[in-house]
């Protein structure tokens, strides 16, 4: 059985080492926070200038001066800190974040990431902090469905969409399988439903079985 979005978020949360500093991208990746155990002591960074960000604000907690990068009101956790945008992105670009989790249109076999622009002539380009995250975090995790709605693979030999970053993705979590992008190639870490052979059939990318599979 392929993984649902919530199961995927939980799987990612389990793989984040205790005490990590983590940035969760806008949209689906935000849900990973719901599955982080308190004793994992993970500290969430939001690029609009905060560490130790808490969950979404509810009711009276809503404060227009306190939002996440998706502009959703959030709350503080004890030990939080605020800083300006240049300091926030220095943190990112300087390699201080342990993990970031982002969505993607496409990931290439060598870890190129495309997640900011469809390249459509009428699209308004809007990059936000995507390139900074892709370039700066020590480990870049992608969270996506393995196939587009019309059934085409999103793990591809080479991205056809405009790139967000070159050779920056470390791991790809999908509904059907989890992949590591390594210097040796794309390693299938776990499968959810399809067999290794199914995945080889589906994808136009050479796959390596994880040791022990």
């Amino acid at each position, binding site marked *: 059985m392929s993984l649902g979005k919530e199961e995927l978020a939980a799987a990612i949360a389990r793989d984040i080492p205790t005490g990590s500093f983590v940035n969760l991208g806008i949209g689906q990746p935000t849900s990973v926070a719901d599955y982080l155990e308190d004793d994992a002591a993970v500290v969430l960074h*939001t*690029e*609009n*200038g*905060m560490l130790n960000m808490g969950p979404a604000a509810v009711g009276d907690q809503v*404060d*227009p*001066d*306190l*939002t996440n990068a998706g*502009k959703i009101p959030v709350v*503080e956790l004890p030990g939080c800190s*605020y*800083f*300006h*945008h*240049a300091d*926030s*992105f*220095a943190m*990112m*670009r300087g390699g201080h974040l342990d993990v970031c989790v982002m969505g993607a249109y496409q990931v290439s076999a060598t870890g190129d990431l495309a997640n900011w*622009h469809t390249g459509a002539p*009428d699209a*308004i*380009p*809007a*990059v*936000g*902090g*995507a*390139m*900074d995250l892709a*370039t*700066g975090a020590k480990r870049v995790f992608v969270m996506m469905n393995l196939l587009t709605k019309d059934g085409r693979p999103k793990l591809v030999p080479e991205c056809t969409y*405009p*790139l*967000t*970053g*070159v050779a920056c993705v470390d791991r790809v979590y999908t509904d059907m399988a989890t992949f590591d992008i390594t210097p040796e190639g794309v390693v299938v870490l776990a499968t959810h439903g399809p067999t290794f052979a199914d995945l080889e059939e589906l994808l136009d990318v050479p796959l390596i079985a994880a040791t022990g599979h």
Partner: protein
Amino acid sequence: MTTVCSATEAVADIADGSTVLVSGFGMAGMPVELIDALISQGATDLTVVSNNAGNGDTGLAALLAKRRVRKMICSFPRQFDSWVFDGLYRSGEIELEVVPQGTLAERLRAAGAGIPAFFCPTGAGTMLADGKETREIDGRLHVLEYALPGDVALVGAHRADRLGNVVYRKTARNFGPVMATAARTTIVQVADVVATGQLDPEAIVTPSIFVDRIVPVGGQA
């Protein structure tokens, strides 16, 4: 030397063709009263540097709607409520320069810090580096990015003392502190102004040296 004045007085000398830095991330830290005053003042042919390109129909979006902005430099123009910008862009009535958010912040900081250019890994190998000088340093490709100074900064902050020292509130801090350093004239709107010496010297975020005009606008303090 910092003066405390009204929004109308503060924006009176902003010239047509100016580059205006506008703080805020979405509406948090957006200097709405200063933008309203700028709309009334009438300056046009502006280049606006801001993270987004306006939300809804107020603030920056209202300035855009009046067709006072020739060019937007921002990281993320397209949002669910950016219909004003979207319309102008699609009809070819506004120029757009998209800059990665961290590079935007760093180019502003560089302008304030007397650094005219720096090598930056962000965007290397992407279409946002097209036409830019690149260099491999320590085995990694970098893009040469230039400082982005403003003629005027409009900053939304929390509180100032009479001397012009400024503090912010939570994530509304965002671009304010770097923009305050990057403009020839920095105008800061605050909820309130307190006596000099009433702010903790260890917690002042924007020292008075960067602030030309303080505009108290009331509101949450």
